[in-house]
């Protein structure tokens, strides 16, 4: 399906550039694409945000509905993260059940939200064991121009910060803003030869030798990591990337916090 010759020529070119410290789009190796966040993009959701990371576009809609707590966590609400990589977003889409890419995307975003304890699920419990809020974080990928993960978590956290608990609609108390306690940010790197570059485009992802996503919180902790794709990182690489992720994380947290 993919044109293998083109892929190989592109891979060689991307690699040659990386050796010279350069990238296809002229960015520096540790430079993010421009980020634009539009909270409240969709009014039918209880919270929403459109995130544009260069040409990559991810829309997140949050819906809050009454539900039942899981039997093993009777005092907690339920958080469900789902990602749809729809065929509109990329020529590489394949029909069928949710792709493994969309499953990994939703799980990595979900893991960061949970590990950072971004939402206090105990506060989403209404009646222990009986009634709680279910918080659906639905990610809709509109343009997959690379690094969906970082854009998706930015969209999810912006949408959660934008969300209201619709108590009045469901006659469960007043409608109040959803509390967001922590703000995890994911930063993704790929290896191209010996270069470790941040925020890869899809061309860079297609030709990389390993990808590493690092989620940090505002206290400087690492809360989640995911190495994926074929390739490898030394422990030394990982620590270097953690240091870089902490810097990017702080900058993006600042951006979310100042976007209205």
């Amino acid at each position, binding site marked *: 399906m993919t044109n293998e010759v083109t892929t190989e020529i592109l891979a060689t070119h991307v690699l040659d550039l990386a050796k010279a410290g350069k990238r296809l789009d002229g960015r520096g190796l540790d430079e993010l694409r421009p980020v634009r966040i539009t909270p409240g993009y969709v009014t*039918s959701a209880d919270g929403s945000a459109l995130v544009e990371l260069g040409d990559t576009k991810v829309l997140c809609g949050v819906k809050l509905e009454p539900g039942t707590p899981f039997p093993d966590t009777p005092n907690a609400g339920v958080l469900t993260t789902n990602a749809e990589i729809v065929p509109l977003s990329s*020529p590489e889409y394949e029909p069928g059940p949710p792709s493994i890419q969309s499953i990994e995307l939703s799980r990595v975003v979900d893991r960061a939200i949970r590990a950072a304890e971004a939402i206090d699920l105990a506060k989403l419990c209404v009646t222990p064991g009986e009634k709680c809020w279910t918080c659906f974080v639905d990610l809709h990928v509109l343009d997959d121009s690379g690094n969906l993960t970082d854009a998706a978590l930015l969209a999810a956290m912006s949408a959660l910060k934008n969300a209201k608990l619709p108590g009045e609609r469901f006659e469960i108390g007043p409608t109040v803003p959803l509390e967001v306690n922590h703000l995890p940010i994911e930063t993704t790197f790929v290896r191209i030869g010996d270069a470790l570059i941040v925020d890869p485009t899809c061309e860079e992802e297609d030709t990389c030798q390993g990808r590493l996503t690092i989620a940090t919180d505002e206290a400087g902790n690492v809360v989640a990591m995911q190495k994926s794709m074929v390739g490898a990182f030394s422990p030394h690489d990982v620590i270097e990337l953690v240091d870089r992720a902490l810097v990017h994380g702080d900058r993006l947290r600042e951006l979310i916090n100042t976007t209205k």
Partner: protein
Amino acid sequence: MGSVGAKDVPELLDAHGKRIDGRGLHDLRPLKIEAGVLQRATGSAFVEWGENKVMAAVYGPREVHPRHMQQNTKAVVQCRYNMASFSVDERKRPGLDRRSQEISKVIGEALESVLFVEEFPKTSIGIYIEVLQANAGTRCAGLVAASVALADAGIPMSDLVPAVAVGKIAGKLALDLRKEEDNYGESDVPMALVPRSGRLVLLQMEGHMTRDELKTAMDMGVKGCEKIYEIQKAALRNRYSLGGNGGGEAQ
């Protein structure tokens, strides 16, 4: 259409014949179209129409998957209309339900009616519509967006395809229903026009209308489509004019 046991039916027309949002019976909701909004797609368009937000992308002509669907004498048109889970009041389970599958079929057939599919044998043309925010009329909004996305993709067509619904509310025919009008009205007739031929390529109906009401409804719909057609053309002109940043817009 007047669901059984529903309560609190709102007043759809006031004493002055104005509709819930202040429109007259022949008025469209505000409509904005922007072409070329996505990077990866061959062509794309975004439509904001009243409180609807709809994105469309076109891919191809390209190889057919699965291969056995390939046709030797024409391109296969694959159309998918999908609603985001958060596009409606009550969260919708992700994925295509039966309604979305039916709409995908009739939109795909409507658009294939203006495409020169014989020029691209053994290929597929993928038309993908995502409803991001819904407030009645999303199949028409999707068709309008997809038609512009096809033009943006440079795929030869005999014409652009505008679309709009006409309904009956409080006993009167009204153009371009919004959600309350659709839920509590008496009938709904979505249609899509090929302006150059004056023919309809999409036409559905549900409710009660006499033959003569239907005739009037189609007249109103055709006039509405002609206005939308101008906005579609403006969106494409803006896309290709250097200074263009906006797209087409109504009102």
